[in-house]
């Protein structure tokens, strides 16, 4: 969109930033671009194929990115929440990044389509349903026209969670162990997640080795459950983990469950405001404890 390209060109030519990170069109659909020149800035797009959470590039461990200097980052609402999370956890200097927010009407699940995909119940990404941040707040600039509400998907994440909740514990055990059986411990979920920024992940700690590294279901259970726990109250619901998982494990549903738990128990929804304290690491004197004898 022109507004975005103009802004990006401006930021580059007046030296405000060294590189603008956004999306471009390509033979393989929409993909991230690190635009360092005005010509590159002209390639910036934003459409329903721009589903990647670019905030993952702000991980301070990504030296190739930090070496590029000052960044401008194009963020949708969910991406902005991730940036807020990084700020909240002191992983980012606010003045190192210029945030360009885009108004979003939802994304599809096929970034590789050759043209922008029309959003229908079949094509809309389930995680977009109910989005409360279609106009991101934590931004320096806001571009794009307001877009209509995304259509409801065939099944929302909440409906998937509810369907699992409706099973018996034995059925849920069968379901999840079968899912974890598929995991090959590629850690793609961890690699793409913008909130997974640890220098040395607990899964890689060998002394002691809390999480069995072999990709048998027992070790996979430990890994996936632990990652879900570590994301409780931090997951922004961008769905990238599930999109990337080569084994097709419904990670977005698993993380959504804990988002719902944290909402119900602690009235907490992840927002793109770094000043709000995360729920785990905080407490109230009257926190629920019905499960404790």
């Amino acid at each position, binding site marked *: 969109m022109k507004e975005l390209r103009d802004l990006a060109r401006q930021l580059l030519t007046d030296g405000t930033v060294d590189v603008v990170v956004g999306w471009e069109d390509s033979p393989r659909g929409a993909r991230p671009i690190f635009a360092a020149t005005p010509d590159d800035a002209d390639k910036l797009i934003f459409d329903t194929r721009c589903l990647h959470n670019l905030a993952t590039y702000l991980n301070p461990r990504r030296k190739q990115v930090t070496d590029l200097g000052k960044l401008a980052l194009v963020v949708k609402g969910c991406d902005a929440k991730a940036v807020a999370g990084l700020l909240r956890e002191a992983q980012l200097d606010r003045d190192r990044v210029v945030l360009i927010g885009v108004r979003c009407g939802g994304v599809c699940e096929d970034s590789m389509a050759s043209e922008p995909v029309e959003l229908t119940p079949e094509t809309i990404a389930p995680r977009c349903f109910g989005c409360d941040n279609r106009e991101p707040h934590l931004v320096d600039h806001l571009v794009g026209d307001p877009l209509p509400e995304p259509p409801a998907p065939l099944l929302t994440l909440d409906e998937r969670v509810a369907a699992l909740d409706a099973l018996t514990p034995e*059925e849920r055990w069968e379901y999840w*162990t079968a899912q974890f059986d598929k995991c090959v411990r590629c850690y793609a979920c961890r690699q793409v997640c913008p909130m997974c920024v640890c220098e040395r992940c607990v899964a890689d700690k060998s002394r002691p080795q809390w999480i069995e590294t072999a990709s048998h*279901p027992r070790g996979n259970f430990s890994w996936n459950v632990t990652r879900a726990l570590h994301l409780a109250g931090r997951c922004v619901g961008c769905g990238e983990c599930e999109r990337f998982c080569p084994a097709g494990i419904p990670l977005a549903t698993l993380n959504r469950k804990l988002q719902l738990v944290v909402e119900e128990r602690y009235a907490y929804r992840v927002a793109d405001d770094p000043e709000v304290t995360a729920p785990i690491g905080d407490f109230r004197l009257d926190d*629920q404890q019905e*499960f404790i004898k």
Partner: protein
Amino acid sequence: MSGTSETRAGATAGGDFEPRITAFACNWCTYTGADLAGTSRLHMASNVRIIRLPCTGRIDPLFVIKAFERGADGVIVSGCHPADCHYTAGNYHARRRFAVFHDLMGFVGVDPGRITFSWVSASEGAKWRNVVDEAVSKVRELGPFTAYRGLIDHNVSADHFEGLLTAVRADPAGSEAGQTEAAQVGAAVVTDDGDPS
């Protein structure tokens, strides 16, 4: 390394199942409460082994997972009552952490009866005895947790669940009726061949 195998909790000579329970107890309240139960000679089931921690704040869900991996059939996590933590706030943090862990365990199908959470103070020897006896009785009912440690050999293909997981909403507008027609989870993204799209 089997010790006295006939007398180990796990398999008695009679063949009845005796649960193995690992308990994570905070030093100042529950551990001391358990001491008091001892001083008061309150007899209780012998299936529990206590691991002492300074505070429930120190207890990580990974301890519980590791305990199940290493053969526990049940776990107890116990500490000071809210407002009484020796370190003032450790149990408040534990409370939130374990609320989330408890819900997640339930969601992935671990019976909540296998994990007991309790507040037992230093003067509640009798309560500790009750917590122990109830936990042992409950886990005995549930049976050995071989399903968990046996996951290492678990071999269930996703095919088995193809029927369980199909995208369905009779009414595309998303009505309640359409949803409950079959309580099934959509696999619009998740397909058997692992194609992420």
